[in-house]
C-alpha cells in the first residue's frame, strides 16, 4: 500500500462518482485550508483518476476500491461524511505538521 510524507504532498484530488457534486463541495473547502501550504486541490470523477492525477486521493468509502484500481500508486484516503470527517483533519494535519499518510 502506498504511503507519502506530509511534506511531499503537492496535490490532493477529491474524487466522487460524477465529479460534479460532493467532490466540488469538498474541494472548495479543502482548497482554502491547503492552498497556503502550496498544495493544489482539484476534483475529479473517480473513473478519470490515474496515478498522475494527484499525490493523495480523497474519496467516499464506497468508491475506495475503484479509486485504488484507477490510481494504484496514489495514497487513497476514504471518508464517510461530507462535513467534518476525521479523514480531512488527518490529511490537513499531515500537510501542516508533518507525518505519514498510508492508503
Amino acid at each position, binding site marked *: 500500500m502506498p504511503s507519502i510524507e506530509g511534506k511531499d504532498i503537492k496535490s490532493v*484530488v477529491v474524487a*466522487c*462518482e*460524477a*465529479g*460534479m*457534486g*460532493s467532490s*466540488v*463541495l*469538498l*474541494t*472548495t*473547502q479543502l*482548497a*482554502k485550508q491547503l*492552498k497556503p501550504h502550496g498544495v*493544489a*486541490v*482539484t*476534483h*475529479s*470523477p473517480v*473513473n*478519470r483518476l490515474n496515478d498522475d*492525477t494527484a499525490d493523495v486521493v480523497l474519496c*467516499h468509502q*464506497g*468508491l475506495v476500491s475503484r479509486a485504488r484500481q484507477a490510481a494504484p500508486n496514489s495514497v487513497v484516503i476514504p471518508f464517510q*461524511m*461530507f*462535513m*467534518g470527517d476525521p479523514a480531512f483533519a488527518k490529511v490537513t494535519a499531515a500537510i501542516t505538521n508533518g507525518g505519514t499518510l498510508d492508503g
Partner: protein
Amino acid sequence: MAEVTDLLVADAVRLGCTAADRFDAVRQAGEALVRIGAVEPAYADAMQEREQSLSSFVGEGFAIPHGTDAARALVRRGALAFLQFPEGVDWDGQDVRACVAIAASADEHVSVMSTLAQVLLDPDQAEELRTTTDPERVLELLAPAPEQDDETQQPQETL
C-alpha cells in the same frame, strides 16, 4: 449577483415541497431542472441512477442530487435548482430539508458550491436556508461571495 442569477433563477427555487422518499425528491429536483430548460429529460434519470449508487446527502439537512459523469452531455446549460421540504424527507436514514440540484457540464457551478459549503459550515445560515419562506432570500444566501478569487481553482478536467 449576475453570477447566481445565471445559475440559479427564481423559477428554479421551490419552497414548501413534500416528497414520499428521497427518490421522489430527486425526481422533483430533476423536473425542476428540466422545466427551466437546463437539461434533457434523460438527465433526470441519470440523477436517479447517481442517487441509487450513493446518497447525495451532505450534512446539515441538505442533499445535492445531480447526474452522472456521462450525463454531462445531457446538460444544455449549467444550472441549479433549490427545493425545500419543510416536513423533511427520509434520506437513507438522514433527515433532509432542502436539496440543491446540480446540472453542470463543466465547472460553471464551483463558485456557488463554494458558497453552499460556507453556508453549511454556519449553523445559522444553514438553518435559514432550510427554513426561509422567501425565495429571494434563497438567492441571496447562495449568491457567490464577490472578490474571493483565491477560491478559483484550476480544475484539472473541465470537459
